């Protein structure tokens, strides 16, 4: 069964001057963890708001749990959990007061669905009397997730829950999402961190209001059109300059400890690459073919 269906959504702001969504279609299965991957300005937040009944699309249709987002907005609001991109809890209320309040908002109690938030809430418990505004970034997001989950929604919308959160807290956050998936909750989550894509069942890569591709992370990687080389040496900056100046280079991006390189012609150019770099006298030169990451794929699609 499909939990979320969007078909040919268009949305623009400022009387059409700022297009936000251009023909966006996707569907999310029940119990699926679906990622919207894309940088700021890709249109992720607009899509979330349309699906969460907060905005009306200019064109196109969307359904959540089989209900139309325009007509049946009231019914949808009973079933979804929504965590907006900005931290949206009451900063002057304590952790416990926030959770208790949102439980009441959805006509439930903390006890009723405690099993669902237990793992997360246990981490927050030592700080339960602390004001939400005084929590660290990672903790705030965990609390917000608790608040969005407390009424056991069937669909969860998480708009950039890990932005600005440190890598450790981010990892913990994704582990929680994996567990929630087991409960049969459909999750639509967006992130600007490409490395988080591999944690989703399927992802939609978005850029400037358009969907570039929708697939499982492994399929997206398999579709990478070329051989990818990881090149490293002692002087990485000089190496990058040299690689970009190389006539057979199709694209070269720095990727932390190595530069990721694609060549115009995989078969014929590999040998000349080795020769070219040796001539440039790079020390500790390493050239390997590697499996692309989602980030490589994303950049190849631009």
């Amino acid at each position, binding site marked *: 069964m499909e939990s979320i269906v969007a078909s040919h959504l268009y949305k623009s702001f400022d009387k059409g001057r700022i297009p936000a969504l251009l023909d966006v279609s996707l569907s999310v299965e029940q119990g699926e963890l679906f990622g919207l991957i*894309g*940088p*700021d*300005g*890709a249109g992720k937040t607009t899509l979330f708001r349309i699906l969460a009944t907060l905005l009306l699309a200019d064109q196109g249709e969307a359904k959540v749990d089989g209900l139309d987002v325009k007509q049946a907005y009231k019914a949808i609001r009973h079933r979804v959990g929504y965590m907006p991109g900005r931290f949206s809890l009451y900063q002057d209320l304590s952790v416990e007061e926030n959770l208790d309040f949102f439980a009441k908002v959805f006509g439930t109690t903390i006890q009723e669905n405690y099993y669902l938030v237990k793992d997360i809430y246990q981490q927050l418990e*030592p*700080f339960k009397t*602390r004001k939400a505004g*005084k*929590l*660290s*970034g*990672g*903790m705030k997001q965990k609390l917000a997730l608790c608040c969005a989950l407390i009424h056991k929604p069937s669909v969860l919308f998480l708009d*950039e829950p890990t*932005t*600005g*959160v*440190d*890598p*450790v*807290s*981010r*990892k913990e956050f994704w582990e929680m999402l994996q567990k929630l998936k087991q409960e049969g909750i459909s999750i639509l989550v967006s992130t*600007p*961190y*490409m490395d988080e894509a591999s944690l989703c069942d399927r992802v939609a890569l978005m*850029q400037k209001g358009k969907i570039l591709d929708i697939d499982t992370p492994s399929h997206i990687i398999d579709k990478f059109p070329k051989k990818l080389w990881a090149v490293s040496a*002692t*002087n*990485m*900056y*000089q190496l*990058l300059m040299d690689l970009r100046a190389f006539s057979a280079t199709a694209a070269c*991006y*720095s*990727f*932390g*400890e190595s530069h990721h390189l694609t060549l115009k012609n995989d078969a014929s150019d590999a040998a000349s690459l080795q020769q070219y770099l040796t001539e440039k006298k790079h020390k500790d030169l390493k050239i390997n073919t590697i499996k692309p990451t989602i*980030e490589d794929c*994303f*950049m190849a699609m*631009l």
Partner: protein
Amino acid sequence: MMKNMDTNTANIVIQARNLTKRFGDFTATDAISFEVYKGEIFGFLGANGAGKTTAMKILIGISKPSAGEAQVAGFDVYTQAELIKKNIGYMSQKFSLYEDLTIRENIRFFGGIYGLSRAELKIKGDALIKKLGLEAEADKLVASLPLGWRQKLSFSIAILHNPQIVFLDEPTGGVDPLTRRQFWDMIYEAAHRGVTIFVTTHYMDEAEYCDRVSIMVDGKIEALASPKKLKEQFHAQSMDEVFHQLARKAKRAE
């Protein structure tokens, strides 16, 4: 890069000794000591709430430490904060440019703050706009630029007055991967010219670009070395692993 970076004591541009900041009975920054050398890209990492922001605020001269010493660009953080501010550039993710001013106006305004003359501003401003390829947008409001462009512009403005050191607080959060790399190209280029880069980030691949990286946990610096050495030291494949090993030890959530 290491090559053009001199680790002589004469080339120390930031020196911190037992730098401490307490808020009541909470020690945000707990006796941290480190040096940053001229032309270095220094990665300042840590989990949320580890005390990075507090330390950074002291170093850029907007917060007084509770104890310890620190010199930035040769000036003391206790007594010469104003001189520090003149000699550094600063760019944060939260605030960098005025969205309701045009690109040209922002350049003029921020350049003017650092005492650039009208003539200098004109030449440097035009060169900057040309370099970023923003000629067509120069008289448009910053609000109309995509985030990535804004951050690139913001960085360029932060180094417009040729500061010795530039502090970057999570400069690439939410920026698309392509622009993020262009941003780092600009950082490399500035470092190449001898500008010292002090940067915080949550992208662990970006930590790999740094000459040296410090990782803060619970207010203390738990590790400080080049990414390569850190990976050896912690038997890790990537900086991500190193970070996880260290940050997992964190006790406090604030």
